[in-house]
């Protein structure tokens, strides 16, 4: 497999506080990588550092291009779609406007319209809610909208920050089922941060286990799933 995204000695700070310590991380082309760990382990910080949303050090390459010093906007335009913590909904815009925003950065308008139909195929509810103010959507619908917005960017890599956050188990399962489809059918690689370890282990092929800003262990998810000691001490089940 080929590395799509590679981070070497990635460190990050929140103001004066250091959140990440020289992390090495690889996301394979076409793969799903999960970052697991307790609250405060540095999972969200890792995603933000990869997109240059926080002060950071170390090198990041995407498709072999050094993106360590690129702006967040440029990294997004290169094909990294970040579905942020809290979903990042534009609450006062309609669902349609939330999705259409992607056209601002895309030249191929016809392909963008096809992608919109693709989004409606995965999330039919968004089409029903098309002209509703996005702030009035339920949490699950807003998460679908966030993934839909990311898909509209025709990404090569999706960074997903706790897509299950605050949602009912039934909806979480539905969203993870769709994420798997997106990964398989649209060939979008994924780096996913999750509290719900069991779900993430199911979806991911590679797992990194984080504790206080450092990688404890990493490897194929099947190995981690079967390592009872690891599971008990870090994943709590």
């Amino acid at each position: 497999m080929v590395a799509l995204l590679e981070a070497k000695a990635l460190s990050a700070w929140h103001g004066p506080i250091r959140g990440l310590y020289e992390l090495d991380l690889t996301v394979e082309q076409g793969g799903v990588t999960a970052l697991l760990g307790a609250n405060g382990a540095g999972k969200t910080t890792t995603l933000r550092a990869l997109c240059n949303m926080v002060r950071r050090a170390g090198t990041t390459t995407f498709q072999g291009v050094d993106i360590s010093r690129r702006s967040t906007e440029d990294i997004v335009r290169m094909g990294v779609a970040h579905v942020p913590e809290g979903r990042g909904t534009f609450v006062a815009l309609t669902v349609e406007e939330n999705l259409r925003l992607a056209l601002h950065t895309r030249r191929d308008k016809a392909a963008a319209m096809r992608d919109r139909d693709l989004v409606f195929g995965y999330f039919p509810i968004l089409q029903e809610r098309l002209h509703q103010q996005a702030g009035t959507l339920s949490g699950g619908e807003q998460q679908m909208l966030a993934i839909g917005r990311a898909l509209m960017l025709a990404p090569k890599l999706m960074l997903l920050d706790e897509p299950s956050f605050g949602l009912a188990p039934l909806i979480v399962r539905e969203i993870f089922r769709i994420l798997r489809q997106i990964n398989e059918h649209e060939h979008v690689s994924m780096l996913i941060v999750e509290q719900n370890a069991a779900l993430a282990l199911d979806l991911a092929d590679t797992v990194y286990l984080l504790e206080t800003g450092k990688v404890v262990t990493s490897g194929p998810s099947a190995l981690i799933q079967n390592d009872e000691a690891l599971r008990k001490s870090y994943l709590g089940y």
Partner: protein
Amino acid sequence: MDFFIQQIASGLTSGAIYACVALGLVMIYVSTDHINFAQGEMAMFATYLAWAMINAGVPYWIAFGLTIAVAFFGGLFIQRVILKPLEHAPVLALVVCFIALLSIFNAIAGMIWSYTIKQFPSPFPSHDLFGNGLVSVQQLGVVGVTLVMLGLLTVFFRFTTLGLAMRAAAQNPASARLMGVRVAWMLALGWGLAASIGAIAGMLVAPIVFLDPNMMNGILVYGFASALVGGIGNPMGAVAGGFIVGVLENLVGSYVIGNELKLSFALVVVVGVLLLKPAGLFGRVIVRRV
């Protein structure tokens, strides 16, 4: 009755100008969440540029267009060069910066063009519309220009992707960045548009109040009142607010409190709106799920 109609007509005319000033304020408010106290002086300065061009023999409408373009880049420049370094500064620092801009523009205009009042040409003939002395072509023209501008802005923000990107950047900058929107440039664009709108307001008002460095002082207060009445985040509301304030101010001035107290009326409106309906008449309360 004739006097009443005249008051309404001239109220609508000044209302149109307040609406332009309010639109400029709204433009900066929605894109950056700030109130630009220098909006009036920027407009005044742009009007002087137009005056200088016209005096140099440039035809009116060409000078009009050029001034709008120069103002646009001026606004862009102010945001990029002066305000960008203050990105993370506290709000009070920005307020001081806006007030500094206000007095700098005022002083530079006075220095270059002196404080004596000057005549500014109007593109519209001053004769009557119907020949009965009630409504002039000039008044109709001022109202027309304002409505056209509102129409263009509405189309821009509703139907173009760039307008949509500006709204998104204002609402949720972090999330807009994650959609690839260059937020910093959207803010600069907001300033450019505001400066252009201000320039139009200045060129519309100058034939009526005459051109001098202090011509926008009172008008800015009315502009604030209009923006607040309409809801500070809403261009359509700003224009409606402008007309409401313009007409009310004229009627109250001629029938109730006299012309001298007209400006205090604007301040009463500001306080009244903030007390009774802080979102403004047309302001939208945004529904959020937490």
